[in-house]
């Protein structure tokens, strides 16, 4: 659960209700509050619970939007892409290979500067078709200009969905955002969520205004013509320009969120847990934070000084901030709930990115160990975390450890 720093009495003042809901339902409620105009759906587990919750809201008359069940994820993402080009606030989502099926639409969406907010219910890629969580599906678009964020609680899912619309539809940004919720562990598990009021959301979210990029008969433009080698680099450079200030926009939006909703997230890019006096830290994304925190509290009782950094924003990657945070520790263990076969040191995606950030962001060279854990929905158990922590402590003592280890594997 995200650490809420507000006392209980104040919570009651700022929210209309408290509900016991799943992560997917929290996102559906965020869509309702954000007054989404067009929702496209195509069933694939575990994202499709959000599809079902939204359809229930529409059927009950609580939400007014175009709800289109497409004939496949490719169409699903194409429809919202075009709806967004015509000025509609849109929501979409998928999981695993469904997300991969939409890949053509996913690659063009950032290039066309369309602020689509998509929920990825992280699911293991086929084959085998496990329904459990693995981050590779969302990570597949990491180079294309999508913003990527991971949440670990239903409250954070709802809040981040609202933040997502504000960030994506900011005129300086206009890039799509994939909000990742771990399949089953977050999409299908319930926790208490404070649901903000419509008035608060109205203050926070301005109307989506596409300006002179709007596709409309009165604004005669052509969008996405074929271009040759004379144009491609300049077009890509325009997207690059966004990444240069994306972190500033995100900081701005979180500050505004805190002012209006009263919930303080502090540093938007990552959350630190018991890192103040830690000797070593673990780093990861998503719901593995729960067993990690439990394990850390246990280890602390044994006198082991370990902390945890939970990365929220993967794209944009706040490299300098990460490096400044991590450089003081004796060793770092990155838990990847993903794989990246053939990568440097055979590590997962997050470990490789953290190492890259450390290389340029700091002269300190603490060992950054990679752990591959929890693929396909396999639990990251408390003993697993204790095991990983022990390995990291060994590295901190100067005992060389392998750069990548698979944890919780039989064999």
């Amino acid at each position, binding site marked *: 659960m995200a650490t809420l720093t507000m006392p209980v009495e104040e919570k009651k003042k700022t929210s209309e209700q408290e509900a016991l809901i799943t992560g997917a339902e929290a996102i559906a409620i965020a869509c309702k509050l954000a007054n989404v105009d067009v929702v496209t759906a195509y069933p694939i587990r575990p994202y499709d619970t959000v599809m079902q919750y939204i359809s229930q809201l529409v059927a009950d008359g609580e939400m007014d939007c175009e709800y289109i069940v497409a004939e496949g994820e490719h169409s699903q993402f194409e429809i919202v892409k075009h709806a967004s080009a015509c000025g509609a606030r849109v929501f979409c989502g998928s999981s695993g290979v469904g997300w991969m099926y939409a890949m053509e639409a996913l690659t063009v969406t950032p290039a066309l500067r369309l602020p689509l907010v998509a929920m990825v219910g992280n699911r293991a890629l086929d084959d085998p078709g496990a329904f459990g969580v693995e981050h590779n599906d969302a990570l597949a678009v990491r180079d294309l200009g999508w913003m990527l964020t991971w949440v670990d609680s239903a409250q954070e899912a709802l809040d981040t969905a609202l933040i997502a619309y504000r960030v994506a539809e900011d005129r300086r940004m206009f890039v799509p955002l994939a909000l990742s919720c771990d399949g089953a562990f977050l999409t299908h598990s319930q926790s208490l969520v404070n649901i903000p009021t419509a008035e608060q959301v109205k203050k926070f979210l301005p109307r989506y205004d596409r300006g002179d990029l709007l596709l409309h008969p009165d604004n*005669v*433009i*052509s969008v996405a013509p074929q*271009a040759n080698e004379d144009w491609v680099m300049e*077009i890509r*450079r*325009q997207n690059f320009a966004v990444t240069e200030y994306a972190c500033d926009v995100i900081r701005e939006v979180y500050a505004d969120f805190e002012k209006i909703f009263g919930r303080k997230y502090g540093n938007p890019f990552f959350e630190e847990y018991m890192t103040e006096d830690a000797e070593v830290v673990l780093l990861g994304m998503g719901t593995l934070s729960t067993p990690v925190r439990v394990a850390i509290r246990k280890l602390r009782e044994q006198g082991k000084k370990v902390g945890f950094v939970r990365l929220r924003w993967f794209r944009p990657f706040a490299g300098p901030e990460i490096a400044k945070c991590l450089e003081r520790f004796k060793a770092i263990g990155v838990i990847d709930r993903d794989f990246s076969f053939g990568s440097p040191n055979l590590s997962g995606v997050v470990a490789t990115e953290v190492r890259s950030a450390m290389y340029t962001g700091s002269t300190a060279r603490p060992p950054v160990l990679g752990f591959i854990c929890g693929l396909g929905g396999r639990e990251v158990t408390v003993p697993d975390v204790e095991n990983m922590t022990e390995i990291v402590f060994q590295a901190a003592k100067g005992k060389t450890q392998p750069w990548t280890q698979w944890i919780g594997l039989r064999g």
Partner: protein
Amino acid sequence: MPELVSFASVEKFITDKLKNPLKVTSARTAYDRFTAIEIKPGQGNPEELFNFGLPKWEDMRLGVSIKGQPQGGPYEDPVSKTVGGFRPVRNELFKKYTTRTMRPVVNFATCTKCTLCWLNCPDASFDVTPDGTYDADLKGCCGCGICEAVCPVKDCITMVNESEFHDNDSQWARFKQDRDAYLQWLEKTIEEAEPVEKRSQGFRYRGQYQEQVPAALEIANKG
């Protein structure tokens, strides 16, 4: 000078294949008429035909979008100043008039506004005037003659030799400015124009293509 095929081999080919000494003489006469001039790099026509400016990335529109072409609209009668009709916005780079050998001259007094010239023009080179008649835009017109062929009114559209003209000004504007002078000029121009039947290029009448294809096929088959 680089030669792909020597003239001697051409002569030999004509002698062997066609066995006609007159053709050899004819080939040699044509060959002797030509002067070869060597053009070095940097020589030749210095005119820059096209210059497409390539903008910097900061100056380009976002989202891989480009502003659409304006669509055109009604325009002004040069005399009465009433606005009407439709003149489409045409591509400034479309310079088909440079290869034109003949151009249409229009009798706006006898035009029945049947729209056939406007419909059938392959380059959409007709403007709808504020009067509702049809005026050929001479910057885009390539001089194919389809408008003359489809016009149902005698002497309403006539294709005349392009070399008599030195501008692409609107004929309808001239007609509105001085109707009588224009009609007199038109009558004289039509009289002096080469009759359609004698013309060797362009479209002349409906059904012309259907007639000519079998004849052309026959020639091709016979050799």
